[in-house]
């Protein structure tokens, strides 16, 4: 009898415990995902996919999709609050800061815009051009492209070259060819010399040509800008379930410090930005938001 009474007492205890732990105590946001009452969101980041950038007005700006690496560096200052004998009573925490940096394998036009504060413009642009030509038997040579500029002075400079390739004599453009002077006709792209520049003489010509292109001015009066960043990555848990990790930086203030190094190694495009609180006209205090969801998750209701 005592044993039966004991079972009833145990049942009552279990029912009482279940009454205490009802569903209202569980965060509904965490139900159904990989988060439970315990945080088991330990993931291996398997692939860094893209960084997508939007202007602060919401307009898509650029996508970095050949990323070598990206880092989100988080800092916070802490000051110990001490009592008698210097014993630690607490800490004063402040100055949280986040720096986003990375390297893209391609030079990104959009990244150049945000780093310089400029904007690419499409259209006809004047570009400097130089080439080496050979004077033919008629004392003429033809430029590859039409030189533009002040009429009668389209060719900025022209030098004859010595046989060992050095610049020799400088010739001046004139209305007609003469000793030490040459004529140029933009319509035919023909340079005309007199007999002092003989057949087979190499010349080097400097001129400006017009071409359709995109140009970005790095204006000394304009500075690097701000953008909203979305960093997308793939991740896996220990059970090989695949997830997508999306880190949103609502307001990233880009640094204007960057190098474009040309030479024997690949030219990569590095960037650095500081996360700012106050996105959404000062309403948000979030420096970044880290979201994890199943790679093939259906739309939520």
């Amino acid at each position: 009898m005592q044993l039966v009474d004991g079972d009833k007492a145990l049942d009552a205890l279990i029912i009482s415990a279940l009454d205490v732990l009802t569903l209202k105590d569980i965060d509904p946001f965490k139900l159904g995902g990989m988060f439970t009452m315990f945080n088991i969101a330990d993931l291996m980041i398997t692939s860094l996919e893209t960084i997508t950038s939007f202007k602060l007005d919401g307009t898509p700006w650029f996508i970095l999709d050949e990323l070598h690496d990206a880092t989100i560096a988080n800092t916070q200052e802490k000051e110990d609050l001490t009592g008698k004998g210097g014993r630690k009573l607490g800490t004063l925490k402040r100055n949280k800061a986040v720096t986003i940096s990375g390297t893209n394998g391609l030079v990104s036009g959009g990244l150049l815009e945000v780093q310089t504060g400029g904007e690419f413009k499409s259209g006809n642009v004047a570009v400097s051009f130089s080439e080496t030509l050979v004077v033919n038997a008629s004392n003429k040579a033809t430029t590859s492209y039409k030189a533009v500029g002040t009429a009668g002075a389209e060719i900025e400079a022209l030098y004859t070259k010595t046989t060992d390739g050095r610049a020799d004599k400088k010739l001046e453009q004139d209305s007609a060819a003469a000793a030490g002077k040459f004529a140029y006709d933009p319509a035919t792209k023909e340079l005309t010399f007199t007999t002092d520049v003989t057949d087979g003489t190499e010349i080097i010509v400097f001129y400006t040509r017009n071409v359709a292109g995109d140009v970005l001015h790095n204006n000394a009066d304009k500075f690097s800008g701000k953008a909203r960043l979305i960093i997308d990555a793939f991740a896996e848990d220990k059970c090989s379930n695949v997830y997508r990790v999306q880190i949103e930086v609502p307001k990233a203030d880009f640094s204007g410090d960057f190098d474009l190094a040309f030479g024997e190694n690949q030219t990569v495009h590095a960037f650095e930005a500081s996360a700012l609180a106050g996105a959404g006209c000062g309403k948000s205090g979030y420096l970044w938001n880290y979201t994890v969801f199943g790679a093939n998750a259906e739309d939520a209701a």
Partner: protein
Amino acid sequence: MPKVKKICKACGKEYEACHTPNPNQVFRWFDIACSRECAAEYLRRVEEARNHQAANDEIKE
């Protein structure tokens, strides 16, 4: 901007001119001559030479 010594393409005199960028290729007389008058004279000669050349090319064709 640096000043450069140039030779007037019309009268051959040396003159001083500012070397400033001209990205829109606006006509500036001081790029070619020491005065507006000389620039106009030089342009006249250039036009004449180019028209003459064009006429010769048409005859050849």
